[in-house]
């Protein structure tokens, strides 16, 4: 044993965020034994990737996927982590820090990584419920919850963060208005031309813009109700997100007597004005500048770690050119460096209005100093590399604007080997800007750990694990290392974390390899967990049910609670019960029986639904079988209002009563419901039949809508109500009721055979295209009849009333009973 080992010093890190933990990570690489480390975090979480909050909001990632350092990392490195306890004071004389809970820790060195906080505009109404920032997990949870209960969101701030928030809320089905103080969006990252293209595209997606909009008041009673602008415009909204910028957190430093300006002042060595206190990240001000992007934080972390590791370190933090990308799916925007330019610069502009692409390169003294790309940003990384190399362009200049592939062709390079470009990069070339990972590190990890997948590289190096824009380069590095043995994934995401296979791959395997049970699927396809998770099990259960009707045994334990308990769980753990009303018809006897049930079980709320039925809310788990039995006794069955299943068939009264009615829409609706009830699907399915083109049953926003005309029936598909409305596409016009049933059955069968679990008909049709659906259902008569026959065959096994099967006293009712009562 080395008896000369010096005693460890005490390092206290204030702030458990990305900059602080990256510095610790870098420090451990340089000198793992020098310090005992204590980390204080104000948030109750481990360190997560704040940049990825917009992907969580947009529903593309979940919280687990954005954790950078799990608890085990802290444990393995002997770091004491104190979460949910902010540091409130630093005594630089006696050298201690004090936390909100009263904890006092002595230090040898302090690292301040207190980050920043959102700027709030100086207007009334900031404390109203429904007003939040977009900064941490709590904010994202507030926004997600609001999207589930409210309709209209207002985002104040049209910069990078604001637009990512707006996009996420739009994806979650809210109507979104964006208020921006300036005339064009993202003016700090984009030039006017690109900003206008961006605004147009977002406008088409349904965002409403209020540019040159100065917020004067956030108003509301009890909850926010809207925003009033200085020019008098009023925007109604139930959620207001503040995203106008960030301000360094400097209060702690100021109180400790550390020099501050806008941020905590640091030198090139990341030291503050007080000895032994360092600072990194968004809380610092370096040479008069503060930072809100991630790449400079990584550079600061390295320099700071150098100095913490060795007293005689000489490295300096030098601000480098920065690049940004907007993380909005399907919109490709990139900018880097000085993209505005001045009288000493030249610019090269390329615009293709038809393809909606725009490129602008700024050059000074034959060097690239800035770039803005819109619509096609795949050369962003290449331009950024050129920009940072800071070398004269020479002949490259002539073809520069056409991108890397063309430029290397023009330079006489061998044609189109996609890996040639990355092969030519030096080992120190940065591939992943978010996590500061260079080519050499990725290649090393692939070789050392035998990595073969993108996920593997992400797990080992974090490259491509954040914004994902370097994914093509990482894949090329994999291809470069592995040659033909690298099988690029299809681009579709894995079904869940238990597998690398996508929904489509799993479905194909079930059919091609005749997998008939869930364990067979999991073992054949190499599931990483013994029995899956809450994401994959319901999906697999559905795929197996569709593939092997009458044969596969429906797995109740893989059903989501609502489908297992045949009722909708509510926020307080009680349930709602909805009996089926065929085509929206009911009788005095049924209504009397419902009224009796409400009285007998003291059901607190009775509500008429949008699907023309009656919802009984507040039924306890133990009451369910009894409520069902009473409804069954009056002739009613489950309405499947809780299922990824056929829900309702909404109708108008049609020719039987209505003076405009052209056909018996109610009768048609009842026939459709009798045929389709009990069918399981990838998501809920709603039908409607209108008796004339006035369309009182709203058939053109349903998954399958029928509109009667004099000469027959129009069949409409792929509609969606709610906030994110999609109007149906016309599938066909038919003349008889039998044809309506046949087309409907065939269409639903095609949908459930091709859809990915939890994909409704609207996104399914957008994915496969209406022509495909028409080919299969309209043009291919034999195919249609075959699909219809398959649908009817499967229905033989699904049209048992689940309520009757769970009547009190039957074995299937046991799970609803309390197992034991202990006094």
């Amino acid at each position: 044993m080395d008896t000369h080992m010096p005693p460890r010093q005490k390092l206290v890190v204030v702030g458990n965020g990305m900059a602080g933990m990256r510095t610790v990570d870098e420090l451990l690489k340089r000198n793992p034994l020098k310090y005992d480390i204590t980390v204080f975090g104000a948030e109750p979480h481990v360190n997560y990737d704040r940049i990825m909050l917009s992907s969580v909001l947009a529903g593309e990632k979940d919280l687990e996927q954005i954790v950078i350092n799990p608890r085990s990392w802290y444990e393995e490195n002997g770091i004491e982590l104190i979460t949910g306890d902010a540091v409130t004071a630093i005594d630089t004389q006696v050298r201690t820090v004090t936390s909100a809970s009263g904890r006092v820790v002595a230090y040898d060195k302090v690292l301040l990584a207190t980050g920043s906080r959102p700027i709030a505009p100086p207007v009334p109404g900031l404390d109203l419920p429904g007003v939040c920032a977009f900064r941490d997990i709590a904010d994202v949870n507030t926004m997600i919850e609001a999207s589930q209960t409210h309709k209209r969101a207002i985002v104040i701030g049209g910069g990078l963060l604001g637009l990512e928030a707006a996009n996420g809320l739009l994806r979650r089905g809210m109507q979104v208005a964006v208020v921006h103080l300036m005339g064009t969006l993202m003016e700090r990252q984009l030039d006017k031309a690109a900003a206008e293209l961006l605004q147009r595209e977002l406008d088409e997606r349904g965002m409403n813009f209020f540019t040159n909009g100065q917020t004067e008041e956030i108003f509301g009673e009890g909850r926010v109700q809207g925003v009033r602008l200085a020019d008098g415009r009023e925007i109604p909204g139930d959620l207001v997100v503040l995203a106008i910028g960030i301000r360094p957190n400097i209060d702690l430093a100021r109180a400790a007597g550390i020099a501050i300006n806008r941020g905590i002042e640091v030198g090139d060595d990341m030291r503050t004005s007080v000895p032994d206190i360092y600072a990194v990240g968004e809380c610092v001000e370096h040479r008069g500048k503060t930072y809100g992007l991630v790449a400079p934080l990584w550079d600061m972390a390295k320099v700071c770690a150098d100095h913490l590791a060795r007293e005689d370190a000489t490295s300096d933090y030098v601000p480098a050119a920065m690049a940004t990308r907007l993380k909005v799916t399907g919109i490709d925007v990139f900018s880097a460096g000085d993209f505005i330019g001045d009288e000493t610069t030249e610019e090269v502009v390329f615009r293709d209005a038809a393809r909606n692409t725009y490129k602008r390169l700024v050059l000074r003294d034959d060097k690239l100093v800035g770039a803005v790309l819109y619509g096609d940003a795949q050369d962003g990384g290449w331009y950024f590399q050129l920009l940072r190399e800071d070398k004269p362009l020479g002949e490259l200049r002539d073809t520069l604007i056409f991108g890397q592939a063309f430029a290397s062709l023009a330079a006489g390079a061998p044609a189109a080997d996609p890996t040639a470009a990355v092969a030519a990069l030096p080992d120190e070339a940065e591939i992943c800007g978010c996590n500061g990972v260079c080519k050499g590190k990725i290649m090393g990890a692939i070789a050392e750990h035998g990595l073969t997948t993108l996920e593997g590289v992400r797990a080992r190096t974090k490259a491509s694990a954040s914004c994902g824009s370097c994914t093509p380069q990482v894949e090329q590095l994999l291809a470069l290392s592995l040659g033909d043995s690298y099988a690029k994934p299809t681009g579709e995401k894995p079904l869940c974390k238990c597998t690398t296979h996508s929904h489509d791959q799993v479905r194909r395997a079930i059919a091609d390899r005749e997998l008939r049970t869930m364990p067979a699927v999991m073992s054949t396809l190499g599931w990483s967990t013994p029995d899956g998770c809450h994401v994959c099990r319901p999906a697999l259960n559905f795929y197996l049910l569709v593939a092997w009707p009458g044969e596969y045994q429906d797995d109740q334990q893989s059903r989501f609670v609502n489908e297992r308990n045949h009722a909708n769980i509510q926020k307080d753990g009680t349930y709602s019960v909805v009996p089926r009303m065929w085509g929206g018809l009911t009788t005095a006897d049924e209504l009397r029986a419902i009224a009796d049930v409400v009285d007998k079980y003291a059901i607190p709320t009775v509500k008429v639904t949008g699907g023309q039925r009656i919802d009984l809310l507040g039924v306890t788990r133990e009451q369910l079988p009894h409520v069902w039995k009473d409804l069954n006794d009056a002739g009613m069955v489950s309405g499947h209002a809780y299922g990824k299943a056929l829900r309702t068939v909404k109708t108008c009264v049609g020719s039987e009563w209505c003076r405009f009615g052209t056909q018996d829409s109610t009768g048609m609706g009842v026939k459709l419901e009798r045929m389709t009830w009990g069918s399981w699907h990838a998501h809920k399915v709603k039908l409607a039949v209108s008796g004339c083109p006035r369309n009182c049953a709203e058939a053109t926003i349903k998954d399958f809508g029928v509109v009667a005309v004099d000469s027959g029936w129009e069949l409409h598909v792929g509609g969606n109500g709610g906030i994110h409305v999609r109007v149906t596409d016309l599938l066909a016009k038919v003349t008889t009721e039998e044809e309506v049933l046949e087309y409907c059955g065939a269409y639903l069968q095609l949908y459930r055979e091709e859809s990915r679990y939890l994909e409704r008909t609207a996104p399914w049709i957008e994915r496969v295209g209406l022509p495909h659906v028409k080919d299969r259902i309209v043009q291919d008569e034999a195919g249609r009849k075959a699909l219809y026959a398959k649908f009817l065959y499967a229905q033989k096994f699904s049209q048992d009333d689940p309520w009757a099967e769970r009547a009190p006293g039957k074995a299937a009712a046991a799970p609803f009973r309390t197992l034991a009562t202990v006094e």
Partner: protein
Amino acid sequence: MDSVGIESRWVEVGAMDDIPRQGARVVATPRGDIAVFRTLDDAVFAVDDRCPHKGGPLSQGTVHGHAVTCPLHNWVIDLETGEACAPDEGCVTRIPVRVQDGRILLAMVA
């Protein structure tokens, strides 16, 4: 085996066969419901039937591995530790369980 303090006693609440694999049943007690889980590999766990997030009934969640996903907002609770999986944070009280001849016993505070 979990030990039981002086103030606790073992109370039989039912049989293994009463709980489906990958499922749970509820035991009512004066201090609230307890969810008793049986996993695929026949391990038995008992925790308070209240998710640390918003009080959702964990007994009605999806059981996978030695974990349960809350039916309300998909928090995943590790049944071995009672802790929510990262980055969610929270903890649910565990109740010591013993299985004897196919009977399930819970340690109840006397």
